């Protein structure tokens, strides 16, 4: 452990955040998942370079700060490079970090590294992206997100606004990503044959890239005279693409997606000119990391683990019923923050550096 501690100070690719300052805020009330044993915690990202990740990372740090038993909190960004993600995991294990929360973007490719860390005695908690493997054997606990649940929420809303059925256009990220497949399964649970998916099976591929989204959407609009509802699992990427409807002299249709300040503000600005434009969002899931941190901290410090094992993104905005929230735009804050996240709006603005 002494040696490891020395390596720890030598490592330079990682940002080290002192928890001392933050601990004072947590003194008021220690949550039940925070046990008495001292531990160090690492948050490992596969790719940290977008606003969603920045808010998520800051949320993870905020959650860890609630527990005074966490003596050290470190963060490493794999920068979208699987090799670097793997070496980050290995070096954290070598440094003797007690618990690590891992966003395994590369999927099963990081499993061997996670398994090694787990066997070396580190509490390993992968979250959100399925890395394969078995709980207790390859890692301590996997905290998934219920994308099927998101699909069900969207499906139920689509039934409300289009009781007679209609044409659905579903856009997701890279080809074959499991998130999109799960969401489709969720929608199919609720929607019957009256609802026709007009995209290629299983979803139109956008890579979650705004510019590709724009091209895909304009092709789909040109092709289909009737699109009743668009479903997308990354709402803010549609902001650049939706004005394409005006090119065709058509109203933006109903939209079931995930939230983002830029999207909400876009809705506010365009709802009057587009009579069919309705918006329904689920929380974009930044708080998934909080549940993962709670589990990791509980296992590392001897606290009581939370009862939830899967993060269920709550419904956030509904422009039709106004419940649980009406569409909320904060024009004074950056477009790239997520009002659905637990983290305070201003703190998010700071996290994304604006």
């Amino acid at each position, binding site marked *: 452990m002494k040696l490891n501690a020395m390596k720890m100070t030598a490592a330079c690719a990682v940002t080290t955040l002192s928890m001392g300052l933050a601990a004072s805020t947590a003194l008021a009330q220690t949550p039940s998942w925070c046990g008495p044993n001292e531990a160090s915690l690492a948050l490992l990202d596969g790719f940290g*370079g977008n606003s969603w990740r920045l808010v998520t990372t800051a949320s993870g740090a905020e959650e860890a700060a609630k527990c005074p038993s966490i003596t050290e909190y470190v963060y490493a960004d794999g920068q979208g490079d699987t090799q670097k993600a793997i070496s980050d995991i290995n070096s954290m294990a070598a440094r003797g970090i007690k618990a690590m929360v891992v966003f395994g973007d590369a999927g099963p490719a990081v499993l061997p590294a996670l398994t090694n860390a787990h066997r070396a005695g580190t509490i390993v908690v992968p979250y959100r992206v399925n890395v394969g493997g078995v709980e207790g054997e390859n890692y301590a606990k996997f905290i998934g997100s219920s994308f099927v649940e998101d699909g069900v929420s969207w499906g139920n809303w689509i039934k409300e606004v289009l009781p007679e059925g209609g044409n659905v256009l579903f856009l997701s990220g890279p080809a074959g990503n499991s998130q999109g497949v799960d969401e489709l399964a969720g929608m199919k649970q609720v929607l019957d044959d009256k609802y026709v998916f007009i995209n290629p099976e299983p979803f139109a591929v956008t890579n979650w890239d705004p*510019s590709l989204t724009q091209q895909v959407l304009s092709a789909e609009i040109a*092709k289909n005279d009737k699109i009743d509802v668009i479903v997308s699992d990354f709402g803010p990427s549609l902001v650049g693409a939706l004005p394409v409807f005006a090119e065709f002299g058509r109203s933006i249709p109903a939209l079931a997606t995930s939230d983002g300040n830029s999207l909400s503000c876009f809705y506010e600005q365009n709802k009057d000119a587009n009579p069919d434009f309705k918006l329904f969002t689920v929380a974009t899931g930044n708080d998934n990391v909080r549940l993962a941190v709670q589990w990791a901290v509980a296992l590392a410090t001897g606290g009581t683990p939370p009862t939830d094992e899967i993060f269920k993104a709550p419904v956030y905005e509904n422009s039709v019923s106004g419940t649980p929230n009406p569409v909320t735009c904060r024009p004074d804050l950056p477009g790239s923050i997520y009002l659905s996240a637990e983290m305070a709006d201003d703190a998010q603005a700071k996290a994304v550096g604006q």
Partner: protein
Amino acid sequence: MAQYQQSAGHDGLGLDLRSLKPARGFVTVVISTLMLIVVCAIFAPSAISAGGLAGSLPFAAIIAIVGLGQMLVVQQGGFDLSLAGGVSLAVVITTHMSGGSDAQLFSSIAFALACAVVAGSVNGLLVGVLRLNAIVATIGMNALLYGAVFAVSGGVPRITTPLMAQIAGGKTLGVPNSVLFALVIMLLVSFVLKKTVIGRRFEAIGANPAAAHAAGLKVQLYQAMAYVFAQLHYCVAGILISGITREPTAFQGDSLLLPSVAVVVLAGTSLLGGRGFPISTVLAAYFLNQLSQFALAVGVPFSAQTIIQALALVFGIGVYSLRWKQAATKRALKSKTEETDNEA
């Protein structure tokens, strides 16, 4: 080598070759494009509908502009892999430095252009003067530019200013402004390359640097300037992307590198250097973009979309190469050289 001789021979050999050769590259691209339009009209009419074109043409314009930049470098026998970094840096500078305010827009654009000149000059110095391998030098520059992208943006996308969205995303007389930008740049490049002394020297140097050097031309300077002007093209493309896409990512240039090389090759510019074909390059950009629109409009699964695009590219380049070989054989016979094997 046959390419060199035939190109270098232009100025002396007279009109017959000169009028034949551009027609060959141009005709190939035009025929492929017309064929594609016919296929679209039959199988996916929405891809060539007015609305469909309005949505897709701005992206063709972007490919055309980066393609023209890449063409300048390829004309000097080089490759510019710093395209992705150059485009992305221009995107983040115009979106972040302007801070969403129109008042700051023009100063941020000026700064982006200045950065492009610096990056291009360093590339030019490394490749043109210090004779580093173009691929090695520009891949290093690309990494540096991405460093700058992160320094400016932290990797976070930001929404563009309303004025920029209006300039790049708007329309004039029904034509997307970005398309007008691409056409103006194409005319400018064509004019300079084909009708000015500087342009003629530029092409002559690309065709045969040794001969040009013997003729007393400043080979190093011209080769270096190819990289500077290429970066300026990427920069303009990046600025336009920041207006066309409301909230562009910080890595918007990544997907443009391959298309930029593809359009240069499709347009018939030899990878060994020599003559450039700006008009064909722009047409090839339209062809490439229309191809992906076609694949999208047909509504086949993503895997099939990728295969369709790849096959059409192979077809386009294959047709071109076959014609090349015939032509090269004829020329070789004519000039009594025996170097046709290089053209295969």
